[in-house]
């Protein structure tokens, strides 16, 4: 079965420092991987996705993610964190075996950036 794991419930970073939010996946075949961000009482905003090609994917708001096939990881990164980056981050993978539409989400990682 396809699955996504986000091993950290919360990540704390000082403003200006680099941040990493971790994600590992388990799928059969080639993965389609996504990162979304959710601010309190809001919907999910798309940040970036990996389909194929370059392992380093650049997305919105200065975020990037690196696809690592050997480690089955897709960690989200940003060189310099902002207080406004504080939010809930979800990694997701597209489901091959089940419904065509289904995005399988990780449980989410709360990012807290302190001034």
């Amino acid at each position, binding site marked *: 079965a396809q699955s996504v794991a986000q091993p950290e419930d919360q990540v704390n970073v000082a403003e200006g420092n680099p941040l990493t939010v971790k994600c590992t996946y388990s799928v059969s075949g080639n993965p389609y991987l996504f990162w979304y961000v959710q601010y309190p*009482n*809001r*919907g999910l905003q*798309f940040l970036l996705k990996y389909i194929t090609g370059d392992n380093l994917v650049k997305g919105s708001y200065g975020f990037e993610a690196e696809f690592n096939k050997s480690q089955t990881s897709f960690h989200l990164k940003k060189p310099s964190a902002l207080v406004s980056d504080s939010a809930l981050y979800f990694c997701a993978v*597209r489901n*091959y075996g089940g419904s*065509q*539409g289904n995005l399988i*989400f990780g449980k989410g990682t709360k990012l807290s950036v302190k001034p």
Partner: protein
Amino acid sequence: DAMVIQNPRYQVTQFGKPVTLSCSQTLNHNVMYWYQQKSSQAPKLLFHYYDKDFNNEADTPDNFQSRRPNTSFCFLDIRSPGLGDAAMYLCATSRAGGLGETQYFGPGTRLLVL
């Protein structure tokens, strides 16, 4: 700006009283999805429409129904809400159904069941 709109943003209903949540989109996307997100949990797909074709997830309760009268609108009907149905309901769209297609989410409707 093209977008996904959900109304209302907050909905209060009574136990057992039918409720309808609405979603509209100006993206002209073929696919529309409904997700349920309970507190501190990941979103969970309930069902989706590819054009007029309805696709229900196997574990979606019968209490949840959906209608898509045209490309722009999609409705979520909860026939007899229970306390356990209190959640954020997220509507999303995608241009097509391919595995690499990005899903774009609306702001959500938070449902409270009294």
